[in-house]
């Protein structure tokens, strides 16, 4: 049962994180295309936001690993 939960959890996390990072990538590429001289600033902001999404996704991934390994049962 915990394997199923972990598998589904990891899938949902991957979907959500991919969606979030995709949105960031899309809008930052659009912004850079619109204003190439601000590429440096935009890249910094993009990385910072992507890192926050990654953090949330990884906390979810850790929960899945804990479920799959059966720690604390």
């Amino acid at each position, binding site marked *: 049962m915990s394997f199923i939960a972990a598998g589904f959890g990891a899938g949902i996390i991957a979907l959500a994180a991919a969606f979030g990072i995709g949105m960031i990538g899309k809008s930052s590429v659009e912004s850079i295309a619109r204003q190439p001289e601000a590429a440096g600033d935009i890249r*910094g902001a993009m*990385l910072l936001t992507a890192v926050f999404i990654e953090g949330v996704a990884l*906390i979810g991934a*850790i929960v899945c690993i804990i479920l799959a390994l059966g720690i604390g049962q």
Partner: protein
Amino acid sequence: MIYVVRRALATLFFLIVFGPVLLASNADTEQNSAPIDVMGKVTDHDYFELIFGAKVYLPRMFYSGGEWYFFRDTYSALDSGEFVRGEEGGIVRADTGESIAFDLSITSHLIYLWLSLILTVFITFMAGRKYKKGIGRDSEPKGALLNIFETLFVFIRDQIAKEFMPKDKYEKFVPFLFTIFMCIAFMNLFGLLPWAAAATANLTVTATLAIITFLVTQLNGTKDHWKHVFVFPGVPKWALIILTPVEILGLFTKPFALAIRLFANMLSGKIMIVCILGLIFVFTELFGAAIGVTSGVFWVLLTVALYFLKALVALIQAYVFTLLSSVFIGMAIEEHNHDHEDSSVANAKDVALQNH
């Protein structure tokens, strides 16, 4: 001359990378039933693994039952008769069966932490000595070490510290950010060696780093920072009932997320590589040796690609940790003047006037 050096380096690289593989067959056959110990590659050990599968057992010191114990290694602790192996591989007291209360033993992760600290200090002092002599100040930087040092240092100062901190205060924090970047980068890069382990794949190490960042952030917090935490300016009084607990919680979630991020990234990298190499054994078991070995070509290629990704991730995670530390410190040491909306409007007007 350069060819000799290059050939020697290539041979050394080959030996370092493939030595453990070639000698793995006559290495100790442990009681483990699985062909590869996946978690064992990333978890902490009481021994330090050398290049050719040789293990150096590290000293143990711990506090148990109101007394300090010192042993040369785990086996001498077991031989003394006071401790036996527990169910999870650790050692427990022989008489009561309780686990060790307070373990200060030297472990493999600690060794890698020390190594990266020593490397950081070494590089910094070498560069500092050269700068004192005038190389790099009066002339251009000379030698690989000084060039690498200067590139990294200027990168940290301009791209990380200056960017996210107030212009008049950032200089104080550049040494801290540089140290934390170099340490994490070295620890992560040690994880790329096949026999070594990344110390940052241990939650204790990353939590310690995050706590240091937390302390630096809070101890340098200005009056404005604490005002924003306890009494957020510019909101109605009743909103503070919700806002203040959230802000206080926010103080602690930031370093927590910092620790978890680094830990999970470094843990997942090695596990992924070991698991993909383990697919060779899975395929051999399922479809026979021929298909297993043939598919091995594909898995090894995938592993090579993953190694490059991991090298990239190692540096990116060091950068991200430093960046977020810088952002948090920058937020805490900022002094707000609460008319910045007006000034930004004025700036925009100036810019618009200049453009036309």
